[in-house]
Every structure is written in C-alpha cells, then in structure tokens.
C-alpha cells in the first residue's frame, strides 16, 4: 500500500512573512518556491530531508471564496486552525533558548514527558508547532 508521507499543508496569511519565520527563525529550508501565477507553491522542510515537505498555503480566491478565506484567516488567528506539525530535535532546551532569543512566541516551555522533552510555539499567524527531544 503506502510508502511514506511526503507533503502536508498548513495555512499561512503571508508567504514572505512565513519564510522569515520558518526559514529565518526555525531554520527549515525551502524545498520548492514556484510562482504558478494563480498561486505560489511554497514548501519547506527539515534541511537535508526534501522527501518530507510542508506546503505553506495562503488561503484565498480562486481556490476558495473571499468569504471562506476570511473565515479561514479568522480561525488561523484564533489558533483554531487544524494545520500543525511536530519536529524532533537533539536538544529541546537548547533549541528553546535559541528560538526564545529570536523572539519566537512559546505556548509551553520544555516539559518532561514519558516520551521525551517537548515544548510548543506559535507561528506569526496563530498556527501551533511543537518540537520534541525523543527519549533515547
């Protein structure tokens, strides 16, 4: 049947601002940035892992009505939109400190859990992201 998960998607409200955050602050890399005219296909991933990409999609016409896009934007900024992901890291506390210095907004400080140490943050739009240092 299936072999891998290759692409997933989340809504961002501004793709340039998303790049500043996901690449400039979180240190992900651009795996594709294609201007298709009707939309910009923009994906990012963990450096060295182009096989797993996240599409940073801007909600809007003509994919959806302006009214629907407004509802999506409303949900994203309320922190209620579904798109999110979990990253892994070698050192959760160190990564947390480095991102805090860069002005990243955290929703949860590094916390010990049965599966490792993890914490939570917001992107500039309201999406939630987490990263975990798995227990070895």
């Amino acid at each position, binding site marked *: 049947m299936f072999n891998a998960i290759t692409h997933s998607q989340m809504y961002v*409200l501004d793709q340039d601002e998303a790049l500043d955050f996901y690449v400039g602050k979180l240190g992900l890399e651009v795996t594709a940035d294609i201007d298709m005219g009707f939309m910009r296909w923009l994906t990012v991933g963990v450096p060295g892992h182009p096989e797993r990409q996240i599409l940073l999609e801007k909600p809007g016409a003509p994919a959806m009505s302006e009214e629907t896009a*407004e509802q999506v*934007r*409303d949900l994203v*900024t*309320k*922190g209620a939109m579904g798109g999110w992901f*979990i990253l892994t890291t070698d050192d959760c506390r160190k990564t947390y400190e480095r991102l805090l210095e860069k002005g990243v*907004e*955290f*929703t*949860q*400080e590094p*916390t010990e*859990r*049965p*599966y490792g140490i*993890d914490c*939570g943050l*917001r992107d500039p*739009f*309201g999406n*939630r992201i*987490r990263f*975990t240092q798995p227990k070895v």
Partner: protein
Amino acid sequence: MSRATEETNRRMLRARDAMDRDYAQPMDVPALARIAHVSPAHFTRTFRATFGETPHRYLQRRRVERAMFLLRETDRSVTAIGFEVGFNSPGTFSRTFRDIVGRSPRTYRKEATAASVPTCFTMAWTRPST
C-alpha cells in the same frame, strides 16, 4: 475590518497563550490586557467575544486541567497540586475543581488513568468543557 479582526484575534491569542504557559503565576486582567496591548476595559469583553468565555474562566479551566494532569500522573498531594497550578488556597482549589469537573480532586484521582500521548493533545482534549 477583516484585518483588524485578525489583529485582535492574534492579540487575544497571545494573552491566552500566556495563560496556557504561565497559568501557575498570579494573573489579573490588567496584566493580560498589557500582553494583548488593549485597555483592561476592552480586554475581558473582546476575549469573550473571540473565544466564548471570560479570561478568568479560561484561566480557571487551564489550572484545573493542569491539576487533572498532575493528579493522574504524579503522587503529589492534592493540597500541593492546588498551590502548584496557581490556586491560593486548598478550599478555592477544591471548590473550583468540583465546579468544573463535577467530582472532587480525590475522586478524580481514583478514577483517572495516565495516557501516553503528546501533552498538547491531553491539554486540549482533557480540558473540561464548561
């Protein structure tokens, strides 16, 4: 109009995130309003319009949800847990817990089981709904 709403949403979310993160600290409306960059008078009303409940109630539910977590997954005493999640007295903790969960902290502890899933999910989904 729409962009203004989005900006307001993000400000309210920023204040709600502060409650999620620093729930154990003393928090009042003026402090939260400062985080949201709005006046205290506007804060409670706007927060309620955005998320459907007052900031005070949200903070209570967050504290109770964290207390539920500690009751499930640690051996700490009920009294210690009440203080640890930000309540000023055991009486207030017990009363608020029962009001929200419908059971006392001690009864809840007997009935609950620990779940080994990501914290973000237990935080969101074991949060009492009223």
